Each structure stands twice: as structure tokens, then as C-alpha cells.
């Protein structure tokens, strides 16, 4: 329960999704089995860059049970734009269903086999004869910047995006003349989202009605519908996208990529129902990658360690076909780099670069490298000045009295509690006591323990980016009084059927069991922003509130008319509308609903029958949330293995709708960050061949690798209707630098240093060796 807990909002209401999911009665895309359905398998390039010299599908076509083997010649000319979204441009990386004359990454789709079963489709895929003349692959992002070879010959450069925010004269002076100037280059390594459910689509095209129904594993049914419309040429009102249950996404399924769109196009062309379920090897090679970032950071400090200026030169690897713009968040990294610290001036350069690797796509906090670089740099600065990292942060953090604070990039920071979370995290983890213990253990046993912090502010629910900043809700009351809420969201683990029911039930004054949320289906919901970008609580939630308010107002008006009372004197509690203080004067909600539909003569004069409302909410440009992560680790000097001992998150996401859900979201993000820092690594060889193509090589954390996470909650309401803030991505933002800093702190005991991830045994042992430890 939270300080502002209402009847439902603020309560850890158990989820109504759970009953079906626990009993195996969820409906994921692979569970959709339709009569006459055919199965697809892609033939993909196993060369990172090269010219296709031969493509022969005759043997594959001849296999019993194979219906078609489609190539670029069959499909590409019929494809409209394959941009996954019009929201963000990809700066021209050409998107086609299937590779034509050349391939640009291992996994590039070359042919699509359609057969009676996936087993047969894979048999046929092996019979497709492909010859590719290899060319030198561009795999390293730093070398790609100036490489003479082009990932995309159509474009003039491998640099897809270059956002400079030039240094002012004052900044130049600060970087030159300050008492202390520290520079460090940090690298983050390639990771991937790994939702437990891979991507998939069942696209059913009926030529007779010229309608296409696509079941998809998507976070964004309405955007998917638009994308399918663009590529197939079918009008949107003849396309339906359904996503009932989606097995995770973390950004991978926010935009619809080439593969699903190619299957939809093929269904249209063949007039059939086609199913494509990505297998795990494809998912690790060809879905999307993320987190390949490198930045050289410079901080200028005074003698007390206070920031005088900052500069970051950032490079991100966009892969060959980045999704959703350049895949990462480019300029946002530079703009947020200074984070929750007071800096008089800062500047940056941010470039996104193509390489012959898998697409960079959105992964939980796509811009989070700003926190990685800054928080890791903070510890470097602290050590340079001779301060404890906690003390350095205390000296520089933006405090309540500094708000609103305009970041050097111009972004206005407000309603955040960075300083408070810093203190709360330090207190919960017992920071000072740990320092004593750390020293004792090192001196008596030579063991390396370390403590790390990760402090950040997160821009959530960004209202400025249409259509991501707006959501619409329909609240509809049946003649029998039950409430249906229709949302254009794409829940994939966030419990939207529960949390939005909490909001609506609270607003209306009815029992939560009488509220059902419908979402994940374009036919029965208003156009919406999907689920992602930490926006549901604020944006969908506020739309729900607005629609609920309108319905409530009508209910009250009807009840007031029936009871001859003043609307202002009425309240709705537990499904009963009554005069405040006089419970005997009441009318049940269900009765009002009945009258509104079936006994309309009793409505106030001039009132339209029915009981429903549609309302939209556009969020403010940014709703900031914030958190401080703190953790302790032990670094094993013999094996190089790192064990996380304790993990604390002190977070402020405003008014929590469901604290249980909030903690669940944080936990998932934290463990993804833990995996990303210590275990997970997508590896390419120098020729662009992926080496980590199964779960035996791409290692995600299991229950034995994670600590019990401890939480502290601060609730500073946002200036949005419910006072909520977004928080779904934060766990994955703060954790990598927090763990990195803890490891660095441990290694510092013996003078060893690290500057990149992953922190597996090789990296740790090398660092120890270099320090002679």
C-alpha cells in the first residue's frame, strides 16, 4: 500500500491475466491454428556482405508439401514502403522484403519457403541453392565511420546520423583550464532483448473480401496495422491486427520489421493464411541487437570535485537495417549525458553508424548509454579527486531546491528526487558500514568486495513524439452495468488488463471485478501508441481517467435527475450512487446503466441515450522519473567470476498504480542489466559471422545468478492526471553502470581497472594481471 492508496489505485491488486497464463490457456501467436494454414521458413544469408551470384529454388519447390518458394523476384516489386514507422526515419537504409543482388548481414532474408508444416519448410529451405561471393564485411563500428566500403552502396556514408551540439567558448575554456580534467573512453557491448517468445505472425488474407487479419507477437497492434497497410497496399480499414498474449518484447516488438511484413505481403500475394514463427537461432541472429556504444567522455572539475563542464563524443552501431529510426536514440544520449548533476555547460556529438551486422533495435531504455557513460565517469572523477563516489555524487546532484533545473542541453528537469533516492539507496544498502566491511575483508582475507551506484533520471511518456505521446480510451458501460475499457495498448507482461482496470474502477466508483480491459486488437480498440517507452501509466492511464470522468459525470447527472438531487451532492462508492451523508437516498450503478440504454424516457431532457465515452490524452513533453541503484559485489580473484551480493533500487515513479507490478518491472530490468553486464554477449567474428547463435552461447541469467532485490519507494506526483510517471525501462538503465561501478570499486582495491563490458572471467583476470594483482 502506498501513501496515496485509493480503493484500487495504489494497491497491489492481483492480476486477472494470471488465471489463463498459469493454466496454459494464454493465446500467443503460435497458438493460433487455422484451417488451411501454411508454414513459413526463411532462407537467410550466412555471409555478412556479398553479392548473390546464384539463387535456385527448383529443388526446394519440388519437395512434397512445399507450396511456394518466394524470392525477391516474386515479392519485392509488390512491396510498398517497409518503414516500420513513419515516426522515425531511418535515413534511407533501403528496406526490401528479400535480398536482391547482395546481402548485408548474416541473417539477411533471401527466400521464403511456404509449406504444409514448419518441418517441411525447413527441409525445403535446405534445398534452396544460394551462392554468394563474399566481400569484406564492415563489423567494427569505429572502423566503419571512415571505411571506404559502404554497408549501403546507395548511401554516401556509413554514418547514418550525426548530431552535433557544438562546444561553446565557455565550455572550451572549462575543458582546457579547469583544475582537473578527466577523460575516459567507455565501451558497451552487443546484447539482444531475448523475449522468451520469439517474433511471429499468422497472416490470413482472404481474396474474396480483400481483408487481411494478422495475429502477431507485437507491442503495437495499431502501428503494425499501418505498417502492413503500407507494404501490402491494402487500406488500413481492411486490415486487422490481433495480439492477445505476447511473450515479452522489451522493445523488440514495438516496431514491425521486414520479416513479419514480408510474410504479410506473401499472404496477400498468395491469398493464403501463412504462419511464421521465428526460431531462437533466428531471434539471436536476425531480430535485433542493441547496446553497441562507445563514448569518450570528458569532465572538467574544480578542486572540490564539482562539475564545471562536460563533453561526450558518442558512437553507436546501428547494424545494417536499424529499426525505428537509427535503432538507438542518438541525440538523446548526448542530451541526457549530464543527467541529475549540476553542470554549467556541456556539449556532445552523437553518431549512428551502419555495419554489416544485425539491426539495432529498441531495447529497454534505448538511450541508456548516457547513464552507463555518465555514472561510470562519475566514479572515475571521484577517484581522480580522491572522493568516495557517494560523496562526489552528493556534491554534484541536483537537489530539490535546484528544481526546476534546465540541463545544459536545454531539457527542463522537474519533479524528480535524485538526491533523495541517492540517500535512500545508500541507507538501505548500508553504504558506510559496507566501506568498513570492505576494508576489513580485504585486509584480513584479501578478498575483493565492491560497492557501486547508478543514479539517473529517465524521460518517460514523451508527449512530443506523435503518435507516441497520445493515447485514447473508450469506456463503455453495458446496459447491465458492466464496464469495458478499450485501449490501443499492446500489453506484453505489464499487466495492463489489471492496472487500467484499477484506474477505471477507482474513477468510476465501481468494483474492479465489473471492469474488463480489452486491448491488443485493432478492430475493437481506438488507435493507440502500443506499449513501450514507459508510457502506459501516464498516457493510457490518463486517457482512461478522462474517459472515466466523462462516464462518471453522465452517471451522476442521470442519478441526480432520478433522485432530484444536485449532482455535486452525489458520490459513487462500490457501484452505488448516493447522496453524500444520506446513504438511504441512492440508486445502484446498474440501474443507471439500464435506464441509460433501455428506459431512456427517464433520462434528463435532451440527454442522448447510451453510456460511453471516448477520450484522448496527450502527455506533456517529458514526465521524468528517477532512481538510484546501489549494489555490492564480490570479485573472485582466482576465477574472475563476479557475484552480486545485494541489490537495492530506490525509485520514484510518482503515484504507483500497482506497487507489485512496479517492483516486477524494476526487477526484470535489473536482471537484464545484470545479465548484460556479466554474462550476455552477442559475438561476431571479424568476418561478421555470429558466434553466439543458441542459448548455450548467449547466456542469460537464471535464478542462481541473481540476488534478492530490495526496494525503496518515493512517490513524488507528476503534473499529470494520476500523478504517475513511467518506469518500465528504468531497471535496465541503472543496473549496468551500478554493477560495473561495484566491480571497478572492488578491483580498485588492488589497482586494477576496467573500461568496458562484458565483465566475464577473461576481462576480470586480464584487469587483475595488468595490475600485477
Amino acid at each position, binding site marked *: 500500500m502506498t501513501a496515496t492508496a485509493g480503493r484500487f489505485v495504489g494497491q497491489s491488486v492481483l492480476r486477472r491475466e494470471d488465471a489463463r497464463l498459469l493454466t496454459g490457456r494464454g493465446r500467443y501467436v503460435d497458438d493460433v491454428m487455422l484451417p488451411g494454414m501454411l508454414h513459413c521458413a526463411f532462407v537467410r544469408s550466412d555471409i555478412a556482405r556479398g553479392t548473390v551470384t546464384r539463387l535456385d529454388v527448383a529443388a526446394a519447390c519440388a519437395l512434397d508439401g512445399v507450396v511456394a518458394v518466394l524470392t525477391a523476384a516474386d515479392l519485392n516489386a509488390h512491396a510498398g514502403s517497409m518503414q516500420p514507422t513513419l515516426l522515425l526515419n531511418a535515413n534511407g537504409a533501403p528496406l526490401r522484403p528479400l535480398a536482391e543482388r547482395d546481402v548485408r548481414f548474416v541473417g539477411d532474408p533471401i527466400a521464403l519457403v511456404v509449406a504444409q508444416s*514448419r*518441418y517441411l519448410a*525447413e*527441409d525445403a529451405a*535446405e534445398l534452396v541453392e544460394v551462392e554468394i561471393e563474399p566481400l569484406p564485411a564492415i563489423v567494427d563500428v569505429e572502423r566503419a565511420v571512415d571505411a571506404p566500403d559502404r554497408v549501403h552502396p546507395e548511401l554516401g556514408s556509413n554514418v547514418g546520423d550525426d548530431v552535433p551540439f557544438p562546444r561553446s567558448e565557455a565550455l572550451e575554456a572549462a575543458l582546457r583550464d579547469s583544475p582537473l580534467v578527466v577523460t575516459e573512453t567507455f565501451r558497451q557491448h552487443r546484447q539482444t532483448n531475448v523475449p522468451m517468445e520469439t517474433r511471429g505472425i499468422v497472416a490470413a488474407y482472404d481474396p474474396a473480401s480483400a481483408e487481411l487479419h494478422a495475429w502477431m507477437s507485437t507491442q503495437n497492434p495499431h502501428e503494425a496495422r499501418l505498417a502492413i497497410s503500407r507494404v501490402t497496399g491494402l487500406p488500413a480499414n481492411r486490415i486487422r491486427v490481433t495480439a492477445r498474449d505476447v511473450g515479452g518484447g522489451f522493445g523488440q516488438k514495438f516496431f514491425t520489421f521486414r520479416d513479419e511484413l514480408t510474410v504479410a505481403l506473401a499472404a496477400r500475394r498468395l491469398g493464403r493464411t501463412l504462419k511464421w514463427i521465428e*526460431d*531462437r*537461432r533466428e531471434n539471436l541472429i536476425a531480430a535485433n541487437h542493441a547496446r553497441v556504444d562507445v563514448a569518450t567522455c570528458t569532465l572538467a572539475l574544480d578542486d572540490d570535485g564539482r562539475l564545471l563542464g562536460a563533453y561526450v563524443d558518442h558512437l553507436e552501431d546501428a547494424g545494417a537495417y536499424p529499426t525505428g529510426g537509427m535503432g538507438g536514440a542518438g541525440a538523446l544520449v548526448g542530451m541526457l549525458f549530464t543527467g541529475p548533476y549540476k553542470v554549467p555547460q556541456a556539449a556532445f556529438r552523437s553518431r549512428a553508424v551502419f555495419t554489416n551486422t544485425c539491426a539495432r533495435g529498441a531495447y529497454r531504455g534505448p538511450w541508456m548509454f548516457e547513464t552507463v557513460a555518465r555514472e561510470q565517469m562519475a566514479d572515475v572523477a571521484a577517484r581522480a579527486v580522491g572522493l568516495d563516489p557517494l560523496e562526489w555524487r552528493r556534491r554534484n546532484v541536483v537537489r530539490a531546491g535546484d528544481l526546476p533545473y534546465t540541463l545544459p542541453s536545454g531539457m527542463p528537469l522537474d519533479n524528480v528526487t535524485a538526491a533523495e533516492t541517492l540517500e535512500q539507496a545508500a541507507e538501505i544498502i548500508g553504504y558506510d558500514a559496507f566501506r568498513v566491511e570492505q576494508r576489513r575483508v580485504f585486509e584480513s582475507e584479501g578478498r575483493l568486495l565492491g560497492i557501486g551506484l547508478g543514479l539517473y533520471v529517465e524521460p518517460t511518456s514523451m508527449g512530443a513524439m506523435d503518435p507516441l505521446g497520445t493515447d485514447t480510451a473508450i469506456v463503455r458501460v453495458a446496459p447491465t452495468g458492466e464496464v469495458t475499457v478499450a485501449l490501443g495498448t499492446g500489453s506484453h507482461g505489464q499487466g495492463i488488463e489489471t492496472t487500467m482496470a484499477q484506474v477505471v474502477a477507482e474513477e468510476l466508483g465501481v468494483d474492479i471485478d465489473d471492469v474488463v480491459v480489452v486491448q491488443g486488437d485493432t478492430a475493437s480498440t481506438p488507435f493507440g501508441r502500443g506499449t513501450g517507452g514507459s508510457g502506459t501509466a501516464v498516457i493510457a492511464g490518463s486517457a482512461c481517467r478522462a474517459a472515466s470522468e466523462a462516464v462518471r459525470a453522465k452517471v451522476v447527472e442521470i442519478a441526480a435527475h432520478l433522485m432530484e438531487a444536485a449532482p455535486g451532492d452525489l458520490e459513487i462508492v462500490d457501484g452505488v450512487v448516493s447522496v453524500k451523508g444520506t446513504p438511504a437516498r441512492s440508486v445502484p450503478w446498474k440501474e443507471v446503466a439500464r435506464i441509460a440504454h433501455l428506459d431512456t424516457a427517464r433520462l434528463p431532457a435532451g440527454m442522448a441515450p447510451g453510456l460511453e465515452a471516448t477520450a484522448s490524452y496527450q502527455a506533456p513533453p517529458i514526465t521524468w522519473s528517477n532512481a538510484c541503484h546501489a549494489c555490492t559485489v564480490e570479485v573472485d580473484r*582466482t*576465477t*574472475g*567470476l563476479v557475484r552480486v551480493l545485494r541489490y537495492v533500487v530506490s525509485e520514484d515513479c510518482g503515484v504507483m498504480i500497482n506497487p507489485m507490478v512496479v517492483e516486477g518491472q524494476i526487477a526484470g530490468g535489473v536482471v537484464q542489466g545484470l545479465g548484460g553486464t556479466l*554474462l550476455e*554477449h552477442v*559475438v561476431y567474428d571479424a568476418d561478421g559471422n555470429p*558466434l*553466439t547463435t*543458441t542459448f*548455450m*552461447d548467449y*547466456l542469460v*541469467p*537464471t535464478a*542462481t*545468478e541473481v540476488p534478492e532485490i530490495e526496494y525503496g519507494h518515493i512517490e513524488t506526483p507528476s503534473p499529470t492526471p494520476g500523478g504517475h510517471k513511467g518506469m518500465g525501462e528504468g531497471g535496465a538503465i541503472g543496473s549496468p553502470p551500478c554493477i560495473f561501478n561495484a566491480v571497478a570499486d572492488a578491483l580498485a582495491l588492488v589497482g586494477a581497472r576496467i573500461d568496458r563490458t562484458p565483465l*566475464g*572471467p*577473461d576481462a576480470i*583476470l586480464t584487469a587483475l594481471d595488468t595490475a600485477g594483482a
Partner: protein
Amino acid sequence: MKPAGFAYHAPDDLDHALDLLAELGDDAKVLAGGQSLVPILALRLARFDHLVDLNRIGVLRGVERADGALVVRAMTRQRAMERVDDVPLLARATPLIGHFQIRNRGTVGGSLAHADPASEYPAVALALDADLELASRRGRRSVPASEFFQSTWTTTADPDEVLVAARFPRWEGRAGFAVEEVARRHGDFALAGAVCAYEPGARAAIALFGVAPTAVRAPAAEKAMLAGVPADEVAHEAVRDLQPADDVHASSATRVRLARAVVRRAVTGAREEAGA
């Protein structure tokens, strides 16, 4: 990821299985627990026209004690080894194999015959000088562990032979045992592992896994251990000639260091248990 097609055979007696293998030769593969083979088939890293499933052959299951040895018939599930008191190396190595769901199906014989360089049972077999019993239509033969493991996923069994049992000598008297390994996550293949069996003044056995194409004994280190040399130096001796491969999980240098650490721990542990 669906496997390529195959003809499936499920004989319920050993002779029938051996007949099939003799007739089908290289086109056939034996299916035991399937925990290693089926992923290989699903990934289409290998394919076979015929699979001969041994799971219905009763005589290939069970353990018995005979002549100071524990005879484990090949199709005995790995989980059964968790409760085997009289061969501590088997009982201690087993919980390190993957996860309990894998051990519910995986077999002792299957693991030995698959001969993954990073698996535990081959090292246990080597350390204890186990004998592997092979059967074919041509007859039976017993191969000492030291001659069984040839290279990565390769044994000296002939294509028409089936491993039917493994004979693990039991060590009577005052002895100590240890199994140590380092892995990135619980249940993963070891980056380096060591098993040690030690009878003070009598014999010492050290076998390493995860650091060479097969599990390997460390004879020089064993001599040193018997001679009372400190564990650290024994370990140094054990890894002297190792040249493990680099891979995405660890470099060769890291594996050598880890090997040294696990040998040191195993030697120390075995000595302690032996009361030495």
C-alpha cells in the same frame, strides 16, 4: 528448429538393437537420453537416416555391485547416480550436470559415449580407471577408460558398437574424493573442472575436464600429490602442458588458470576428506 527426417527404431532387446546397428552402419545413431543428441538434430548440425532408441531395453538399465566395482548399465538415468554412496565421485559429479530436468532423461552411458570434453562423467571414469563394456553383433569387449576417449565427441567404440555398461571400481579404505568445477552459470558446461580421488600413501588420481579435447589424467601431478607436495604446486604440475582452445566463454589462458584453481581445490578437498 525442427530436425531432419529419420526412420525410428525402438527395439526392446539388445540383440535386436545390435542387429540394426550392424545393418545400418553409419546411417544409424543410437538414441539414449537425447539431451545432447536431440539439440544437435534440431539445429541440423548432424543428421541420421535412422535412430535406434535404446530406452526400451530393460537389460540396459540398473546398477549392481560386483567384484569391488559399481557396474552402471548404460541407460541408467543420471539422477540415479545422485544417491550412489559407494562411488562418491559419481554422486558428487552428478548434481553438476546441467539441471535436474536434464538428469531425469540423460543417461550415464549416453554421457560417456557422447564424450563431450567439458562433461564430468568421462573425467570420473578416467580417474577411477573405469572399464567401458561395449557390445556389437560381433561380440563384447571391455575397454579401459584410458583407451576409450579419443577426441572431442569421439570415442574408440566402433560404429556398430553400443556402450552397455560402465564399471567403476570402488575405493575401500581411508580415501578422500572431490569434484570441483568453474562455470559461468550454475549447470553450464564447465570452463574447467577436476576430479580427485586420493588414498594417502597408496594412490592418487586427478582428472581434468573442459580443458582439452577429452578429459585428461595428470600423472605427474598425481605423483606429486602422493608425495605430499603442496596443493598449489600439484595444481601447477597438472596444468603444465594444457593447451585449451579459445572460445566465446573463456580464453585459453583463462581456462588454464581456472584449471589450476579447480585442481588445487580438488586436491585440498580430497586430502581433507582422507584425513591427511
